[in-house]
């Protein structure tokens, strides 16, 4: 309960919380003081003078700015007095002197605070008869944002956002007086990853969205609350649609998830939802080697159902597999695995980054917890590229609360600019790095004393040995020990690949020794990475994380689904592709996954399967190889729920629909396909004839009429989703509780046992492959969804291999020169880019570049994020041209 004080406004006394800004306090008592520069998420400034009121200062009434005054007992103000009103009117008149009256073509028109305030508080006439100042009207401050300097009223919100939240003060106020302009230092345009928020902050139409410019009028769009599906944070957004198209995406406030910010990927990359290249009808290839032809839904679905059922009958259910995606909604993921398990009878179901990653399904405790930490350990994650809004919260913790960052990453990522320590490593050295840190911790008596009580302590000490800890490691240990509220965040790169188990064990040992294992959190990568696991889109676990071998869990689902479930764990993503290449997997169903775009190995595997079904938005590389292509819809065109990295289940409601397309939501495709399944259809027919044979009700099992009905079943299938129905989720979503998961397989993750380190034979970097390849996520890559937005080319990561300048000099490579890079499994040609943030001895290639060079060199998902490679000058010949 904040202590209340009494202030007087216009001779009326009010009780308001002490220390509150006058503008906010006035809002509580329904006095709406107009503002431009003041914003609840930005520090008070008092630049625009719009909020002028009178204050009694020792008996004299003075004009003051309400947005910078913190109220205290006994303060007296006048808001409606003639002097105060006149002052605000004059301010508005001055602001309008040089403001162009181009509202009819201004994007902000209709939702413009300047328009609104002018109507409410303005004088209505202008005494200004001279010529208005002319400044730049189409002035790009980045590839994504256009500035109209004439419309700008110098409120500093954009400058302050970039300074206070992004810590990239790239915009400034240049010149002075009526010549003042917002601008950037020559040659250094805005490149902050969440820069688009300044468009929304702008109280006039000075900053506009270059993707959505002139494509909407605020009163003319149908606005639907949804969430962003580009990364695992699940930022709340509003989708503004008009005549069946998604015209713009704006942020929606959810204090628990994204405050009121979204990143530039979420804001600008949405053209894929209405791209003309979208698939609009099912396609069928009548015989191998033939062309894809357009077909009706009935024919396509019946063909898929019959062929999958036939393959399962003849070759056995294990010959059928399905690869979903962590971008699918919970409903789609749930039905895909239900279809595979219940109708095909196979556990061959996985998604990229699924079984191959030793993810902690509990994810992050809560996103905003990062702001309370005083030391944040980033282990193999780069939130600035992977979860940019989370990155702004981390920066906030650093700058406002003095948190320090301990960064362990193969690249010197941007946030290494902050106080703390940076420990570089090469892929493959993760476990050794954490073991070194554990050794360092154990040199401290109090750590040793505390850890001695933990199981496995003696073996750990024995295994760690007593090698010396280097200076950087010692500094990291010192930071760890001096922190009161440390928090460890690690990403999929650390816990995937061959060394996943050893890496995670060494990380957990470190966390246990540091006494911070409860505050060690996994950052899931994709929009529904957590949800896909919860839904059982994995070869060895069922919805609700019940293991395949766990009989009670399996029987519960058998009762719910009315079928017998297979008891053998299925194949994972890579294993399915290997089985396909070896001819053991005969039919493959791809839903939102595109193995063919991940290099030649994936393509070869898909070419070997007898029957390939691809359910997609676009004719992807994999879809081009398919026997049946089923057109699906994007997240904006159907209802769905997604579970973010803090286990928050959130709704993404349908915002648009394309009347010219036959594409259907995933849940509907699965439902209709199931009804055409030979067994189900036969049963339905038998029921129709009132046969005496007792039906198991399989047909009724697939009678979903909406995504919400699928979610209803999920609430029964996955215990932690209990009570999370569509209506119950509300506008802000709900975190599924960890408490209910006690006793479930989830609690096993939180083992308080130290694991002795694995004896590794230290493989020295063989001369044949002297470099370590580092691959990883960047915000703007060349993925299928990205390619549909025009600006992507300009903001995307350079298509190149990055190398440390010292290595380049030794290899005699110049920037821009094409080089060939080869690993044991692949070879690519890319131009060289010199980059000091790349560690010597490593090469950096982001994922999802054109031609998938990183994926080609890695060979498979389970290779993790690193491989040994060599580099040699090589020309781009026409046959191996990349991209």
């Amino acid at each position, binding site marked *: 309960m904040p202590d209340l004080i009494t202030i007087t406004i216009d001779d009326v006394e009010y009780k308001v919380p002490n220390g509150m800004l006058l503008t906010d306090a006035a809002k509580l008592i329904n006095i709406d003081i107009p503002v431009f520069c003041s914003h609840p998420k930005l520090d008070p400034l008092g630049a625009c003078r719009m909020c002028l009121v009178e204050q009694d200062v020792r008996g004299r009434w003075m004009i003051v700015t309400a947005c910078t005054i913190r109220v205290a007992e006994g303060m007296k103000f006048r808001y409606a007095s003639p002097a105060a009103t006149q002052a605000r009117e004059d301010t508005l008149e001055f602001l309008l002197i040089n403001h162009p009256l181009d509202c009819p073509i201004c994007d902000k028109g209709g939702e413009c605070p300047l328009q609104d305030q002018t109507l409410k508080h303005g004088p209505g006439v202008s005494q200004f008869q001279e010529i208005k100042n002319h400044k730049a009207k189409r002035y790009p401050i980045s590839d994504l944002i256009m500035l109209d300097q004439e419309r700008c009223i110098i409120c500093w919100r954009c400058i302050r956002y970039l300074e206070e939240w992004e810590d990239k*003060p*790239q915009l400034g*106020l240049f010149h002075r*007086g009526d010549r003042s302009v917002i601008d950037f*230092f020559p040659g250094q345009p805005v490149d902050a990853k969440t820069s688009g928020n300044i468009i929304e902050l702008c109280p006039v139409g000075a900053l506009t969205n270059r993707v959505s410019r002139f494509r909407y009028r605020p009163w003319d769009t149908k606005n639907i609350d949804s969430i962003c599906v580009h990364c695992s944070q699940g930022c709340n957004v509003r989708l503004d649609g008009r005549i069946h198209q998604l015209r713009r995406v704006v942020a929606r406030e959810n204090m628990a998830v994204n405050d009121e910010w979204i990143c530039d990927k979420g804001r600008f990359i949405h053209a894929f939802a209405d791209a003309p290249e979208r698939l609009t009808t099912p396609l069928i290839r009548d015989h191998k080697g033939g062309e894809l032809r357009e077909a009706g839904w009935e024919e396509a679905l019946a063909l898929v159902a019959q062929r999958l059922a036939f393959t399962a009958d003849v070759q056995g259910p294990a010959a059928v597999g399905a690869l979903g995606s962590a971008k699918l909604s919970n409903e789609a993921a749930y039905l895909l695995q239900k279809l595979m398990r219940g109708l095909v009878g196979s556990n061959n179901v996985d998604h990229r980054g699924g079984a191959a990653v030793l993810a902690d399904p509990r994810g992050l405790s809560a996103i905003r917890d990062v702001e309370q930490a005083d030391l944040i350990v980033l282990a193999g994650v780069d939130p600035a590229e992977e979860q940019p809004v989370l990155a702004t919260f981390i920066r906030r913790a650093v700058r406002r609360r003095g948190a320090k960052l301990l960064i362990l990453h193969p690249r010197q990522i941007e946030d290494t600019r902050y106080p703390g320590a940076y420990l570089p490593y090469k892929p493959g050295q993760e476990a050794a790095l954490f073991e070194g840190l554990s050794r360092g911790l154990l040199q401290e008596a109090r750590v040793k004393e505390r850890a001695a009580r933990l199981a496995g302590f003696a073996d750990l000490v024995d295994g760690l040995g007593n090698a010396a800890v280097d200076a950087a490691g010692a500094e990291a240990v010192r930071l760890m020990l001096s922190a009161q509220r440390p928090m460890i965040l690690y990403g999929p790169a650390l816990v995937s690949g061959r060394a996943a188990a050893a890496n995670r064990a060494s990380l957990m040992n470190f966390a246990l020794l540091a006494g911070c294992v409860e505050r060690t959190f996994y950052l899931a990568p994709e929009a529904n990475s957590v949800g896909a696991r919860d839904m059982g889109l994995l070869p060895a676990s069922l919805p609700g994380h019940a293991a395949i071998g766990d009989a009670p869990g399996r029987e519960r689902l058998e009762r719910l689904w009315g079928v017998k479930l297979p008891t053998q764990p299925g194949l994972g993503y890579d294993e399915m592709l290997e089985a396909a290449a070896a001819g053991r997997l005969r039919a493959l169903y791809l839903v939102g996954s595109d193995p063919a775009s991940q290099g030649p190995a994936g393509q070869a595997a898909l070419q070997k399967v007898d029957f390939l079904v691809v359910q997609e938005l676009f004719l992807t590389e994999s879809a081009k190889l398919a026997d049946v292509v089923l057109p699906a819809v994007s997240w904006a065109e159907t209802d769905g729920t997604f579970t973010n990295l803090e286990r928050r289940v959130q709704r993404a409601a349908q915002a648009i629909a394309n009347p010219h397309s036959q594409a259907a939501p995933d849940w509907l495709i699965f439902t209709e396909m199931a009804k055409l399944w030979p067994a189900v259809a036969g049963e339905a027919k038998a029921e129709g004839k009132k046969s005496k044979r007792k039906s198991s009700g399989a047909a009724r099992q697939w009678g979903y009429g909406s995504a919400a009905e699928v979610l209803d079943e999920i609430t029964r299938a996955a215990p932690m989703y209990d009570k999370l129905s569509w209506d119950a989720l509300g506008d802000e979503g709900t975190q599924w509780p960890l408490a209910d998961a006690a006793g479930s397989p989830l609690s096993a993750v939180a083992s308080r046992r130290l694991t002795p380190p694995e004896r590794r034979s230290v493989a020295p970097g063989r001369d044949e492959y002297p470099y370590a390849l580092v691959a990883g996520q960047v915000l703007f890559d060349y993925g299928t969804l990205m390619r549909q937005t025009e600006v992507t080319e300009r903001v995307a990561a350079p298509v190149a291999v990055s190398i440390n300048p010292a290595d380049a000099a030794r290899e005699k490579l110049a920037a821009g020169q094409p080089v060939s890079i080869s690993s044991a499994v692949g070879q690519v040609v890319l131009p060289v880019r010199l980059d000091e943030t790349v560690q010597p001895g490593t090469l950096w290639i982001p994922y999802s570049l054109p031609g998938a060079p990183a994926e080609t060199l890695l060979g498979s998902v389970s290779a993790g994020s690193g491989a040994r490679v060599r580099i040699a000058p090589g020309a781009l010949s026409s046959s191996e041209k990349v991209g």
Partner: protein
Amino acid sequence: MVESRTRSAASPDLPHPSGDPRFALIDRTLKRFRFQQDALIEVLHTAQEAFGFLEEDLLIYVARQLKLPLSWVYGVATFYHFFSLQPQGEHNCIVCMGTACYVKRAAEIVAALQTAYGIEAGQTTPDGMLSITAARCLGSCGLAPVLIVDGQVLARETPETAIAAVQLAIEASAAAGNGRSSQLDDSYDEEGDL
């Protein structure tokens, strides 16, 4: 506005890679103010005196040394009329356009100078001899209209006397045969119009 920055970037004491001895002057000022961020204006003064104008490279150098955002340094450099981002002419004529001078027809002086030398206020003649600047207020309203020609304050000017004074300065240096004489007297207050 600017929160203190504790970046672990390159050490601030690194000299400018060009080895230009004029950077040593800037470094001296930086050290004198112990790299404090609020010494920005002093450092820019030194930079402008040493180089004649503030080119981008110079601003980047100052920003790095003081660990200030580039946009901040650029904002300060453009705010004050004393700082010039373009090369200045050998001779410099500043006409005060503050309220008092304006009322006393300073605009006519500017117009006359512009016609006489064929350049706009804020520009430099193509031969690099003369820069004409219109200042907001030089804080010497009692002397209105005021001119500053090569650092010398001239009071109660008319268009004719202004041109004569500028011409005199140009001819004097031509006769003396020496180049630079643009040592501005920085005693006046650039913030005078507040």
